[in-house]
Every structure is written in structure tokens, then in C-alpha cells.
């Protein structure tokens, strides 16, 4: 099998020959490389890679925790914000209701006050009117008496006198009215 290619004219050694010395060199070469790398170099890098994986996974875990924390505080903040908004809204509604109530109260008070003023004015007017009426009636009576006595005391045939008397009466009425006006 090992002489397939060795068909040269001279005694050229076959390329498929396996000299023992070269075989030993090959074996030794691998054993040295395997020993040096397998026992010295590669365990170091394996450890370093494991440490790095740990570091990265730890970092990811920490980042996840921080993110969860941030999420939690954001939720809390938003809840607080929502609560505050709700409170503000309720306060606003309350204030509006209060304002309406206050306005209504003020309005009704004003209305009541106005009504009271009107009523007192009306009562006063009524009282004054009744007083004036009573006074007028009394005065009319007096005037009537005075007039009657004047008429009776003088001659009734004298038309001019009657007319004068009536005129005097009317004038006295007017002066009376003027007096009352001034005296008021």
C-alpha cells in the first residue's frame, strides 16, 4: 500500500512511507502543544470567560433590578399624580358647588333685604297715607264746620259773598295743602 506513488526510476522513497522518527516527531509535537495549552493556557482563558459571563449576567441582573425599581417608582409617581389630579378635580367641583351656593345665598339674602325694604317702605307709605287721610278728614271736617259757620253767619242771598266764601275756602284748602307740603 505504501509503494503506490514510489514508481520513480531511482530509489525515490515513497511519499506514503512513514519513518518512525518522523512519526515520533509528530506525536511529540502534539503532546507538547496539548500539554502546554491544555494544562496552562486554556484553563486560564476558560476561567476568564466564565468570570466574564458571570460579570455580564450579574450586570444584566443588576440592570433589570434597577429597571424594575424605576418602573415601580414611576408607577408610584403616576398613582400619586392621578390621586392629586382627582383631588384637585373634586376640590374644583366642590368649589364650584360652594360658589353657586354662596351666590344663591347672597342673592336670596339680597332679595329678602329688598323685600324687607319694599315692605317697610310700603308700610310707611300706608301709614303715612292713612295718617294723611285721617288728618285730611279731620281738617276737612274742621274746614266744613268753619265754612258752614261762615255761611250760616252771613247772608246766603248775596251770591257774591257765597262765591267769595267758596273762593276763600278753596284758597284756604290750597294754603293748607301748601302748609302740609312745607311741613312734611
Amino acid at each position, binding site marked *: 500500500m505504501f509503494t503506490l506513488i514510489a514508481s520513480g526510476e531511482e530509489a525515490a522513497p515513497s511519499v506514503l512511507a512513514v519513518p518512525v522518527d518522523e*512519526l515520533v516527531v509528530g506525536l511529540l*509535537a502534539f503532546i507538547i502543544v*496539548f500539554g502546554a*495549552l*491544555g494544562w496552562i*493556557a*486554556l484553563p486560564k482563558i476558560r*476561567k*476568564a*470567560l466564565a468570570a466574564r459571563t458571570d460579570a455580564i449576567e450579574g450586570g444584566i441582573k443588576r440592570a433589570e433590578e434597577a429597571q424594575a425599581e424605576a418602573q415601580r417608582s414611576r408607577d408610584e409617581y403616576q398613582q400619586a399624580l392621578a390621586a392629586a389630579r382627582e383631588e384637585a378635580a373634586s376640590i374644583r367641583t366642590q368649589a364650584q358647588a360652594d360658589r353657586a351656593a354662596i351666590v344663591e345665598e347672597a342673592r336670596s339674602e339680597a332679595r329678602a333685604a329688598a323685600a324687607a325694604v319694599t315692605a317697610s317702605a310700603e308700610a310707611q307709605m300706608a301709614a303715612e297715607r292713612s295718617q294723611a287721610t285721617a288728618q285730611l278728614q279731620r281738617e276737612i271736617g274742621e274746614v266744613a264746620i268753619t265754612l258752614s259757620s261762615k255761611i250760616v253767619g252771613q247772608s246766603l242771598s248775596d251770591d257774591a259773598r257765597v262765591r267769595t266764601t267758596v273762593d276763600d275756602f278753596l284758597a284756604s284748602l290750597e294754603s293748607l295743602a301748601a302748609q302740609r307740603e312745607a311741613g312734611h
Partner: protein
Amino acid sequence: MATNVLASVFASGGPNCHFENSDNPCGFPAPGAEIFQFDSVLTFQIGSIDFNITKVTFVVILSVILVVGFFLYAFRRPRLVPKGAQNVGEVGYLFIRDGVAREIIGKDGDKFVPFLFSFFFLIWTMNFMGILPFAQIPATSVFAIPVAFALIVYLTWVPLGIYSQGGWQFFKGMMFPPGVPWPMYFLLTPIELISNLIVRPFTHAVRLFANMFAGHLLIATFSVAAYYLLSATVIGIIGSVASLGVAIALTGFEILIQALQAYIFTLLAAVYISGALHAEH
């Protein structure tokens, strides 16, 4: 035995062996298997083994020094945040761990990362020696080197299979692939046995060896052609420049093949280990 490609040219026709050289006519001195044979600079004996120290030995030693030196340096004090050589080394480590060990073997794969890692980077470096100026011989193009590697893989996965599956179970799984009607076993069992236990390590070694051998031979052939055709004639210049261009293009292509063959060898080692660990065929 010639020590390098140009020496092989000189040997077959002398330094003036050129196309269209009427003073010294000679045919094209195509490089052959002899360019993989090197004179020994030192010979000694340990036990019954004669050791011939050749250029290939030095290339192997250089490859070992480069691989071990680089990774010892890169991973000397690994930092949490890698930079420089550690970054490069980590890319290699993660490539073998995630791309080969975990991908092929599964969750047991991490144990075999140093094994696969050593193979990949040692073979890649040895292959790379094919285009490193002055080295210019892939150590893996000398058949004994891939044989040594394939032997290590073979002596790993066979005992591993017996150990992790039990001897009978391991060989049963190999000889009687499931899902086949039983009469087929008369045909299949010998084929499977031979293919798994005898052909597999052989092809594992030959695949790497033949690729590097052929690649090196191609580059050598076109390099020699560039020298051989070089003369002060139109045809000589065109031929020489074209050959040189092909040699350069092939060198670029070799860079790809070097990495690819190292990867294939490592991948197959992982596949064999995975088959030994897990019972399914």
C-alpha cells in the same frame, strides 16, 4: 535527495536549464515527490530508532513554538475585557468551543476543547509553513505527521467508545447500524467494521496529507515553470509571467486550503469522539 525546489531544477538540468536555451537543452524539470525529501543535518539514535533531523523537523519545532508561544502569551493574564492577543486567542477558543466542540459533541463537548483546539491550531500552523518564506514546506505534507495525528485521534475515540458505551455495545453499534433489515447485516457488518476501524484513520490522515502535498506540489511546479520559461523572448516572458501569476494565485488559494484542512481534520476528530460518546449511529 534535493533540499529544495531550485536544487531539484539544478539537479535535473543545471542552473542554465531553460526553455529555448540551445547551449544546454533540457526538458521541463517537473518537481516530483523528491521535493518533500530533505537531507538530514543531524543523525542520532535513541533505542532502536534512527533520528534524522531535517528541515521538516525544524518546521515542526517552529510550529510548536509558534502555537505554544502565542497562546501562552495571549492567555498569560486573561482580562475580563480582552484586548490585543487575548482578543485574537479568544476568537480561536470560542470558534473551537462553540463551532466545533459544542456543535458536534454537544454538552459533553467542553471537555474536548483543549484536544480539538491543539489539533486545529497546530495543524493550521504546520499547513501555514507551506507559504512562510524560507520554511516553505507544510509539515503536514510529510505523511508521517498526519499519520501521527490521526493515530492520536484513533487511540482517543476507540478507548473512549469502549469506556463510555461498554465494549460490546460500542462494537455492536458499529457493526449493526439500526434501521436495516437483518439479512443486510451479512453485507453491511464487514463493510462497517472495516470502514470504521481501518479505513477511517487512514482517510483521516490521507485527506490532510494529500491536500497539503498536492497544494505544495502545484505551487512548486508553477514556480519552477516561471524560472524555466524565463528567457529574453516574447514566449519566454509571457510564459514566465503567467506561471508566476498562477503560482501567486495558488499561494492565495493555499491559504484558504490550509485553514480548511485544519478545520476538516478537527471537525472529523470531533465527529469520531461524538460517535464514541453517543450510541446512535
